[in-house]
């Protein structure tokens, strides 16, 4: 299994060099969107490992996107504006995390969903010269909008999230997260600082999503409340992670590669309504493969080598 990560990285590095003729630009574009989806799903998963199902990734994505756009439009250097993305998302998530700390399961999910909707409405209703209202804003591109350059920047952003995910997986935090997920009370008895750990997971996840939001905006060149804060973004994030396999690093990435590619094909064929695929996949995975795609691999390798 050790070769899979480096091999995937090599493939990712080589994508812009693939001689696809007239489709060159399209391939790079799709690859960029795969990276964006994978990064959001992976960042969402970090927080999900504590057993809290957040339906607010769209809010943090949007906050990162708007922070970047609004700062950049006011003459803030683009690099600084970019860093504002994760910063703003992180700070807001700290506040949200503190007030929603005591909510469990379902209530937490609904509260985060409500929060995301409130943030969307706020950005829609703020004065036009501030947020552009329902129409949104045009975002200044990073790196002068150079497509290949932006792809590699996206790869960098994605790798930051991967590193964070792996770091959590291979540190003591992994045990803390898992213990909290399996029983908060037991975790507390075992000496896990539950409140602090949950907040850490929530803020880390939100800041990473905010960073992806800032990056995605510099690549898409615009922000619109309905899209940038859209529930579709949250749905995609959790469906991707669940499809690939939650609580892992490989799962959400694998999920993003498959689902986003599938989505691109369906978008060409159907033009609208292609999100139905996400719905069907979510249903089938919950019913028949709760561990996601990764669990198939683990099952096999366990048979062969006696461990995962």
């Amino acid at each position, binding site marked *: 299994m050790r070769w899979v990560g480096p091999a995937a990285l090599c493939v990712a590095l080589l994508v812009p060099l693939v001689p696809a003729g007239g489709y060159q630009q399209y391939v790079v574009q799709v690859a960029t969107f795969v990276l964006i989806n994978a990064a959001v799903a992976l960042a969402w998963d970090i927080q999900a490992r504590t057993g809290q*199902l957040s339906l607010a990734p769209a809010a943090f994505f949007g906050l990162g996107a708007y922070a970047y756009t609004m700062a950049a439009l006011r003459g803030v250097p683009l690099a600084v504006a970019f860093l504002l993305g994760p910063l703003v998302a992180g700070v807001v998530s700290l506040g949200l995390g503190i*007030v*929603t*700390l*005591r*909510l469990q*399961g*379902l*209530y937490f*999910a*609904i*509260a985060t*969903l*409500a*929060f995301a*909707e*409130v943030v969307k*409405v*706020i950005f*829609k*209703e703020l004065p036009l010269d501030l947020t552009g209202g329902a129409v949104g804003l045009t975002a200044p591109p990073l790196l002068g909008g150079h497509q290949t350059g932006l792809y590699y920047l996206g790869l960098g952003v994605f790798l930051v999230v991967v590193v964070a995910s792996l770091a959590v997986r291979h540190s003591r935090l992994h045990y803390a997260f898992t213990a909290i997920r399996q029983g908060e009370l037991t975790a507390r008895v075992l000496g896990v600082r539950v409140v602090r750990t949950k907040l850490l997971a929530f803020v880390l996840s939100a800041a990473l999503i905010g960073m992806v939001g800032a990056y995605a905006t510099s690549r898409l060149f615009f922000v619109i409340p309905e899209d940038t804060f859209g*529930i579709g973004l949250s*749905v995609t994030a*959790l*469906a991707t992670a*669940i499809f690939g396999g939650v609580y892992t690093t490989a799962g959400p990435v694998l999920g993003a590669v498959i689902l986003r590619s599938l989505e691109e094909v369906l978008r060409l064929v*159907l033009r*609208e*309504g*292609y*999100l*139905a695929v*996400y*719905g*069907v*996949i*979510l*249903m089938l995975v*919950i*019913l028949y493969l*709760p561990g996601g795609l990764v669990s198939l691999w683990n099952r096999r390798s366990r048979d062969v080598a006696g461990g995962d």
Partner: protein
Amino acid sequence: MMDLFLQTLANALIQSGTYALASSGLALAVGVLHIVNFAHGEFLMVGAFVAYWLSVLAGIDPIVSLVPAGAVMFAASGVIYQASIRRVLLAPELNALLLTFGIGITLQNLAVLAFGATPRVVHTAYQLTAVTVGPVSVGVAPLITLVVSVTLLAGMYAVLYRTGVGKSIRAVAQNRTGAHLVGLDVDRIYLLTFGIASALAAIAGSMVLVRIGASPHMGFGFVLKAFAIIVMAGLGNLTGVLWASLVLATAEAFVRTYVPGGGGAAEAVFFLLIFFTLVWRSWRTA
């Protein structure tokens, strides 16, 4: 001044009827099956479209169509229950939530595929007429939806509190194992309850069709509001749903009327209320 106040109050009352109808189904599913049905809004959408097509193709009045709309969703939800919901009843509650989320997204996008995303409206004679009582003027169509909602809610309470089936449903809601021990077929009660809950959503959908119209994306807004209502009421508390519907519809109507540019802010009122109710409760009880 007073006239505007009374008019707003009347609008709120009518809106609360639809909200109560849509939320009661959700509250029923939560209270009895202990699942939060994220697809409830899409069930409402299905009801609206059934009524829409019956009106367009067969010329049936959407108010009459609430019967077939409810029946279609009752049957469809039976299939959905047997094929999926049933399997996650004993799994962690988030699985059920994600499953119904998936069902909702699928239905919504299938509707987009089949009918396109453009909203559709029906035209009936009574939609243009209004009843005027003193300073307050109320459209006949909204008035009919209010009457239907009140009748159906009263009917639901009568079934729940005055019949044997209702007693069984309440018994299962109270204690699944206990109900099973005294010989109730819990699975059948679940099936029936889920069917009734879904049919109520579809009927609410045909009411919404008369007043506003139908579109594939109509469900999500309603399910969020229904969540707000049942959360305010306390999950599974059916009587609370009536009060919460009234409170939220009133808050929404007054923001719409009295806050400048309040159309968008009215949306936020709901979500703010749901958010603060949840947070406040979690800190108070802890």
